[in-house]
């Protein structure tokens, strides 16, 4: 059987979401590297794969998928369904709820922090400190809810590891590379312990090796 193909640049947090799940699922896969600065995602051949011109995309036989969480769910459903719990009404609902908390609450906060604190300096944009400050405050309020949850539950969805954990790696990895990380996270000891446990997983370590803290800009390996 042909290995699964994943298209994109490995420094992308969205790509890393799918890679962590592929690793956790012990999937056979190969990365088809693309260049963001080269505009590979906008070429006709790629638009035939993802008409929205975004990465990652995945091909498994004649099935083509895009959107990192849809890709991740497909891989887990196929190879490691226990990380989704779709056979259990209550457990699957808790997985879905915390996957969506990351998607709709945490990521919209971490993205502007990461863009302003890490990326902007390399692409000729000024850092907008007001945007950073505003989002750091929102982050602290949000982490209060995570802290309360993780004080009574070993993992986000319950007493079991799930996709809810894996989906959080991507943007937390880059937030960890900003100057705000230590002070913010130290105030939430259960959240910090949960995050450090996630970081220690072999899947995460392997994927993180392809994600330098400056996205590769500083070393000239522009994505």
């Amino acid at each position, binding site marked *: 059987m042909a290995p699964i193909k994943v298209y994109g640049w490995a420094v992308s947090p969205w790509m890393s979401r799918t890679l962590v799940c592929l690793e956790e699922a012990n999937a056979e896969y190969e990365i088809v590297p693309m260049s963001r600065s080269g505009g590979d995602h906008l070429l006709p051949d790629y638009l035939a794969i993802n*008409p*929205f011109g975004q990465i990652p995309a995945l091909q498994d036989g004649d*099935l083509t*998928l*895009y*959107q*990192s*969480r*849809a890709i991740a*769910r*497909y891989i887990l*459903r*196929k190879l490691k369904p226990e990380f989704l719990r*779709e056979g259990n*009404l*209550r457990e*699957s*609902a808790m997985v*879905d*709820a915390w*996957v*969506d*908390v990351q*998607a*709709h*609450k945490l990521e919209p906060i971490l993205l502007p922090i990461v863009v302003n604190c890490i990326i902007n300096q390399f692409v000729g944009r000024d850092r907008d400190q007001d945007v950073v400050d505003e989002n750091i405050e929102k982050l602290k309020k*949000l982490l209060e*809810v995570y802290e*309360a*949850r993780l004080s009574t539950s070993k993992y986000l969805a319950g007493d079991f590891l799930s996709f809810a954990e894996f989906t959080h790696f991507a943007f937390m990895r880059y937030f960890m590379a900003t100057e705000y990380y230590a002070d913010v996270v130290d105030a939430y000891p259960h959240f910090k312990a949960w995050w450090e446990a996630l970081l220690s997983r072999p899947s995460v370590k392997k994927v993180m090796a392809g994600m330098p803290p400056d996205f590769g800009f500083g070393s000239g390996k522009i994505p």
Partner: protein
Amino acid sequence: MAPVKVFGPAMSTNVARVLVCLEEVGAEYEVVNIDFQAQEHKSPEHLVRNPFGQIPAFQDGDLLLFESRAISKYVLRKYKTDKVDLLREGNLKEAAMVDVWTEVDAHTYNPALSPIVYECLINPMMRGIPTNQKVVDESLEKLKKVLEVYEAHLSKHKYLAGDFISFADLNHFPYTFYFMGTPHAALFDSYPHVKAWWERIMARPSVQKLGASMVPPKA
């Protein structure tokens, strides 16, 4: 069996997302309003249901849930039958396509369309804030590009995930319903397959029923 409870105003888009799923599966449910003016969404009672102080929240017996898409999927799984299967989790390819277009709604379609709803309807009518035309114009340009992709896709498929109605289509209902109440509704006329798909959704009894309780307040 006690009916499930959905907490939040029925006309709120994310509450409507859950309600359309309940209607599609024919579940018994009740809507419990949450009074935002009275800060009820921040009350201790509500924070137990939704620790983020938002709506919707959901209760089924002793199960409390938050996040409208998670609640919706719980409903669609619980009440699934051979005839009504809006997630297709028994079929890898079909389920994947439902997920793809659910994510596209969340991360591509809605971010382009919802600012138009906020600027043209919600801000002026409910918050006394005038329309920011720059935001509307920028969003319209983004939305046109998105609708081009939808047009190409829907010229090959009756519904988003394939030839079957699914959660992916239903996710588009609440905000698109309100978009049709803005001055820019005619934009869809330029995308005939998208328009036909939207009309198929609007014709569904579940959508007809909910639409009646979602008429925006007059200014």
